[in-house]
């Protein structure tokens, strides 16, 4: 499969919160593409519409207008029930606040996407255990989130996002709650996972310490995409104080 196949296509996406005087136009006509085998970063100042774009892209939020295609399928007109099942099959999520269920062990948390896709409980646990081993958490299967560090919790969350082999992984500020080392570790895993030819990883962030992990960086401002460049071009144009390894992609 070609690594330049578009996994996600957004065209002229508009999203307004509220009505009348208090209406906030969060997306004012956003168009972008993300390809398989690519780690795409969406960057921009707080409030520019990054989270809204992610939500609309995976269908947890409906756009007002514009079209969104995932893997060649338009989700804009998909019925809610079908969209939910589609998301369960094809999308993995990583949140800033991890959102691990505190009363479930690491393994149980990770097994959820497999269970949502109809795997038997034992199989789901097995897959979850294998996934945790892959992110270096072998032996911590029975730990509860509260017994783990932030970095470990995010690695559990990454396992949860990957366990069902989704084609699209979306991450909203995955490193914002982590220290630098844990953030790098998490990004290493995401970077690795994006090498899969059937996968596309989209990371929303304003953490400049991780920009160099991207293949491409899309810049947003005030509800619009203002630029789209390769990571190396972006870093050349936006020099900043963090030390960077030379190249990643």
């Amino acid at each position, binding site marked *: 499969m070609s690594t330049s196949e578009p996994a996600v296509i957004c065209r002229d996406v508009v999203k307004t919160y509220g009505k009348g005087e208090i209406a906030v136009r969060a997306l004012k006509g956003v168009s972008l593409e993300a390809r398989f085998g690519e780690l795409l970063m969406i960057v921009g100042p707080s409030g520019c519409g990054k989270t809204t774009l992610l939500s609309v892209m995976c269908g947890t939020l409906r756009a007002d207008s514009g079209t969104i295609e995932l893997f060649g399928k338009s989700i804009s007109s998909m019925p809610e029930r079908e969209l939910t099942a589609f998301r369960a099959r094809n999308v993995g999520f990583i949140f800033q606040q991890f959102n691990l269920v505190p009363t*479930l062990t690491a393994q149980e948390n990770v097994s959820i996407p497999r269970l949502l896709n109809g795997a038997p409980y034992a199989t789901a646990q097995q897959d979850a255990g294998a996934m945790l081993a892959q992110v270096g958490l072998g032996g911590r299967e029975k730990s509860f989130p509260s017994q783990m560090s932030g970095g470990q919790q995010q690695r559990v969350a990454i396992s949860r996002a990957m366990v069902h082999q989704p084609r699209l992984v979306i991450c909203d500020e995955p490193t914002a709650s982590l220290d630098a080392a844990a953030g790098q570790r998490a990004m290493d895993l995401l970077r690795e996972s994006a090498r899969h030819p059937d996968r596309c990883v989209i990371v929303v962030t304003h953490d400049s310490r991780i920009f160099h992990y991207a293949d491409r960086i899309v810049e947003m401002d005030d509800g619009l995409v203002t630029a789209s460049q390769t990571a190396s071009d972006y870093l050349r144009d936006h020099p900043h104080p963090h030390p960077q390894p030379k190249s990643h992609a």
Partner: protein
Amino acid sequence: MFRIALLMLFRDKAKYAMLISGLTFCSLLMSQQAGVFCGIMMWTTATLRNISSPVWVVDAKVQQINEVISLRDIDVQRVRSLPGVAWAVPLFWGIVQARLPDGSFQAIQLTGLDSSSFTGRPAVMLEGRVEDLRLPNSVIVDQVALEKLHRKGIDARIGTTFEINDEEARIVGICHTERSFLGQPYVYTTYERALQYMPAQRKMLAYVLAEPKPGVSPQEVVRQVNALPGLRAFDHDTFFRETMIWYIKNTGIPVSFGTVVLMGIIVGIAIAGQTFYLFVHDNLRYLAALKAMGAGTTKLVGMVLLQAFTTGFIGYGLGLGLAAIFGNSVLRNGTPPFYMPWQVPVFVGVVIALICSFSAAIGVAKVARLEAATVFK
């Protein structure tokens, strides 16, 4: 995912314990109170169960079995002459003071049976024979009498004597009866001897017990009796029902028990509803994450319902179990009365199910309105 839902419930130990104890308390309170209530209702109809007769003829003003208005001797004849009646016998029924061997007095329920048929005889004889009532001065007493005597240090047995209005009464048999509302011991004798024991008083021909002819229904005999002025008849089941209804309408018993049951329901709703609300509320963020990850509303609602009804089921079981333990221990003492017909567990189950539905509805409403997108906030 249902297993995950249960894990989320059981591991939230504080809330789970709170939910279970609230629902247990609620179903214990309801079934225990309902059991005592039914027990009291059974007391009120003890006579009907201790004296078996298909048709009971009483004074026209009588509404329930514990209301005693004496009939006239002629009334027995009037009932006998009805076309549907095979036979009819009088039953003497009066409360009288018995003088015990130690000189103390004890109120007894003196029951005088027709001496040829012994209609209305005790259903369960523990010792002796009913026919021995044909012997001079003989009586049969029940287990309640033995207990009362025993408490006074008198070990009564066959042959023990006491006095009723200066007449000797000798125990020739011991029977088992169901405790009556007032709790007096039953003392059985013949109709004629009962009149001897209570000569000074107005005769207590409280009931005429009648048997329909073969092929005639008790209801038909009841109709025939009711046509006679001054008399009224009940078949066994109607008398039972009318007596219960009378107590429910005319005493504070149902209100006082009903109040406690209602309190149980309110406490149940308050504790379970509130705790479950908190439980769902605290998990809302994770439920939103599940929704984003592809758990449909139906699935999430199913999880919430499962959680609510699991706690309900466990609380119901524990509450009913505790009520049974309570019932078992009080049944040995006889007071308070306890009787749990199948309607009680069903009623309590329905109430618990309603409480769970109510609690779940709060959670379901929250989950249904949940925006998956909020998970990114």
